C-alpha cells in the first residue's frame, strides 16, 4: 500500500504535511523535522496488526481529520501548585499571563523552547530529539515534525531547586477535532536536583494531545518527575517520555493517568552509565469506556544500574488497560537489578486488562523479576471489615483506596497527591471516609 497517498478526509492526510518552524531554529532541527515527517508518513497510523498496538485500536482516530488547535484562553485557578515555578501552555502556545517563571532560583532555566532553540549554543538546540526513537514512535515523529513550542528546564551542575516546577498543558477544544504537540526538554546538569510536574488538562471538544518529553540526567543528577494526565473524556492523549541517564543519576518518575477517553503512554528509559537508578511508577484510574495503554521500555546499557517499576491500575465500568513492560539488559549490563510489577484491581465485570511483561536479558549476572496480577477485591477482606461493623460500600472503598495508596502516598508533590486523592474520593462510593484512613 502506498502510505504517502493517505485518503483524503483521513487523520493522516490532515496532519501529514505539517512541519513546524521556529524562528532561528538550528539546521539540525530543520533536518530532524524533515526526517521525522518522512518517518511518520512512511509509517502511517499504527494498526492492531502491529505488536506494539495490538490491544489499542486507532480506527476511530484514523477516520477523523484533525486541525491544529487554535489559540485560546484558559482558566487555571484551581490547577496551580502553590509555591511552584510555572509555565502554562494553552493549545501548545505559551500563555505568559498564566505562567509564573520570573523569580527563578540560581541555576534554573525555565523558559519556552521557542526562544531557547534559537540559541545555537544552548542545551536545547544541541540535544533536542536525541533521546527519541522516531522509527518506533510515529506520534513522537509527528510531534517532532510539527511542534511549535514547549518547555525547557535546564539545571546548571549542582543546582538544587526546592520548589516544584509545574508545566501545565491545557487543551481547549472548539467543537471540531483539533490536535496539539507539546514538547518538553529537561536537562539536569551533574549533581543537580529538582522536582518537575508535567500536567495535562483540557476542556471540551474532541482533541488529540501528542506530547513528547525528553529527560536527560547528567552524572549524579536527581530528578523527581510526575506526569499527571487528567484531560476530559473527549480527549485522546498519546505521549512519549524518553529518558537518558548518566552515571549515578536517579530518576523517580510517576505517571498518573486518569483522564482522556484514550490514553497511550510510551516510556523509554535508558540507563546509559553505571550506577544509574530509575524508579518508574504509575497509577491508572479508569472507568466507563476509557482505554489506557502503557508501554514501558527500559534499557539497561551499563552495569550496576537499577530499575524499579510498580504500576497499579483500578478499572471500573467497561474500561480497558494495556500494560506492556519491556526490560532489555545489554550484554555489558552486569549486576543489573530490575524489578517490575503490574497490579490491577477490577471493580466491575466488564473491565479488562492485558498485562504483558517482557524480559530480554543478554547479561548473566543480573537480578530481574517481574510480576503481574489482575484481580478483584478480596471478598475475605470485605467480609472481615463488614463483620466488625463497616458497611459494604465503606469496606470496598477502604480496600480500593488502600490499593492505590502505595502509589499515591509516594507522590512527591502535596498538591498533586491531593488532586489524585480527590479523584479517588469521587470515584468511590465512600471515598471521603476512605480518604480519612490515610
Amino acid at each position, binding site marked *: 500500500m502506498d502510505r504517502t497517498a493517505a485518503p483524503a478526509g483521513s487523520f493522516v492526510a490532515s496532519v501529514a504535511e505539517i512541519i513546524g518552524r521556529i524562528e532561528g531554529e538550528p539546521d539540525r532541527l530543520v533536518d530532524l523535522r524533515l526526517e521525522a515527517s518522512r518517518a511518520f508518513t512512511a509509517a502511517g497510523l499504527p494498526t492492531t496488526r502491529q505488536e506494539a498496538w495490538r490491544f489499542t485500536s486507532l480506527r476511530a482516530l484514523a477516520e477523523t481529520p484533525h486541525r491544529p488547535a487554535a489559540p485560546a484562553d484558559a482558566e487555571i485557578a484551581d490547577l496551580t501548585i502553590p509555591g511552584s515555578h510555572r509555565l502554562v501552555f494553552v493549545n501548545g502556545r505559551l500563555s505568559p499571563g498564566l505562567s509564573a517563571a520570573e523569580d527563578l532560583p540560581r541555576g534554573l532555566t525555565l523558559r519556552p523552547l521557542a526562544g531557547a532553540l534559537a540559541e545555537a549554543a544552548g542545551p536545547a538546540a544541541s540535544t533536542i530529539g536525541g533521546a527519541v526513537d522516531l522509527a518506533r514512535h510515529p506520534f513522537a515523529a509527528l510531534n517532532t515534525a510539527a511542534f511549535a513550542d514547549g518547555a525547557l528546564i535546564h539545571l546548571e551542575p549542582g543546582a538544587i531547586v526546592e520548589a516544584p516546577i509545574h508545566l501545565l498543558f491545557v487543551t481547549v477544544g472548539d467543537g471540531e477535532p483539533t490536535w496539539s504537540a507539546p514538547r518538553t526538554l529537561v536537562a539536569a546538569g551533574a549533581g543537580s536536583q529538582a522536582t518537575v510536574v508535567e500536567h495535562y488538562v483540557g476542556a471540551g471538544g474532541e482533541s488529540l494531545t501528542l506530547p513528547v518529553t525528553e529527560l536527560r540526567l547528567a552524572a549524579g543528577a536527581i530528578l523527581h518527575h510526575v506526569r499527571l494526565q487528567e484531560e476530559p473524556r473527549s480527549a485522546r492523549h498519546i505521549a512519549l517520555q524518553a529518558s537518558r541517564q548518566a552515571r549515578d543519576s536517579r530518576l523517580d518518575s510517576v505517571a498518573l493517568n486518569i483522564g482522556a477517553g484514550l490514553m497511550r503512554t510510551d516510556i523509554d528509559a535508558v540507563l546509559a552509565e553505571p550506577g544509574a537508578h530509575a524508579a518508574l511508577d504509575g497509577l491508572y484510574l479508569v472507568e466507563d469506556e476509557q482505554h489506557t495503554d502503557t508501554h514501558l521500555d527500559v534499557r539497561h546499557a551499563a552495569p550496576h544500574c537499577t530499575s524499579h517499576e510498580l504500576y497499579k491500575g483500578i478499572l471500573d465500568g467497561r474500561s480497558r488497560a494495556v500494560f506492556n513492560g519491556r526490560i532489555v539488559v545489554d550484554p555489558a549490563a552486569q549486576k543489573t537489578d530490575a524489578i517490575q510489577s503490574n497490579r490491577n484491581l477490577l471493580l466491575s465485570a466488564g473491565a479488562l486488562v492485558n498485562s504483558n511483561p517482557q524480559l530480554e536479558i543478554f547479561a548473566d549476572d543480573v537480578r530481574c523479576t517481574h510480576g503481574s496480577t489482575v484481580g478483584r477485591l478480596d471478598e475475605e477482606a470485605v467480609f*472481615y471489615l463488614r463483620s466488625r461493623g463497616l458497611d459494604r460500600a465503606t469496606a470496598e472503598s477502604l480496600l480500593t483506596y488502600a490499593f492505590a495508596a*502505595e502509589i499515591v502516598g509516594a507522590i512527591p508533590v502535596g498538591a498533586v497527591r491531593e488532586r489524585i486523592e480527590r479523584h479517588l474520593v469521587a470515584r468511590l462510593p465512600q471515598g471521603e471516609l476512605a480518604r480519612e484512613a490515610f
Partner: protein
Amino acid sequence: MLQLKNLHVSVDGTEILKGIDLEIGPGEVHAIMGPNGSGKSTLASVLAGREEYEITAGEILYDGADLTELDAETRAREGIFLAFQYPVEIPGVSNTYFLRSALNAIRAHRGEDPLDAIDFLELVKDKAKLVRLDEKLLKRPVNEGFSGGEKKRNEIFHMAVLEPRLAILDETDSGLDIDALKIVADGVNALRDTQRSFVVITHYQRLLNYIVPDFVHVLKDGRIVRSGDRELALALEDQGYEWLETAPVAAGA
C-alpha cells in the same frame, strides 16, 4: 440471647451443619469442641453473616428475632463479634483507623455520637494494655506482617474495644504459647459479665482451664453429639472424639 433451632447449613450444595439445636443465655460461656472439619467455623461464620453459606432449614433467633434477616455489618452493630480463626490481612488500612470506623459505625447504629479522636485514643491504649498488644501494631495496617500470635491477640483487642454482646472466638488459642494464651484468656475474662455471652471454639481443653465454660458441646459431622459441663472437655482430652458416635441417639445404644 441466641437460639439455634434445627439449623441446617450447606455450602456449594454440600450440607455441613445437619441440624443444630443450641441455646445460649446472657452471661453464659459455651465451648464448642470437635474434630477438624466438623463444622465449627461454619457455625461461627453463619452466625457472623457470611453470605456463601445457605441455611436450608431451621432458624437462628437473636434476642428472639430472626438473625438471618440481618447482613453481616448489621449483626456486628447489634453486638455480634467473630474473632476469626484466620484473621485477614488488610494492606494499607491502619489498625487504629479501621477500629475507629468500626466503633463509630456501631455507635451510630445505637444512636450515639462518634467518639472523638482523643477519647478513642485513650480507649485504644487502655485496651491494648489489657491484651498486651504492642502499641506499634496499632499504627500498622490491620494484621499485615503480624505474627500468628499477634493476629490472635489483635482479634481479642478488637473485641475489647467493640464490646460485643455475643463474642464468638474461633480457635483464638491455636498456635499460642502458654503466656499468650493466658493473655487472651485474661482479655476474655475481663469482659465477662452477666449480659455478655461467649462461644469459644477450641480443640484444646487447655484454654478452658483459663476461660471456664458453663457448657461444653461436641460438634461432629455437623451435629452436636454431646453436651455437658467442663468435665466433658476433660474426658475428650483423655479419650479423643472416637468414643462419641456421630448421632446423639446412638450414644446410649
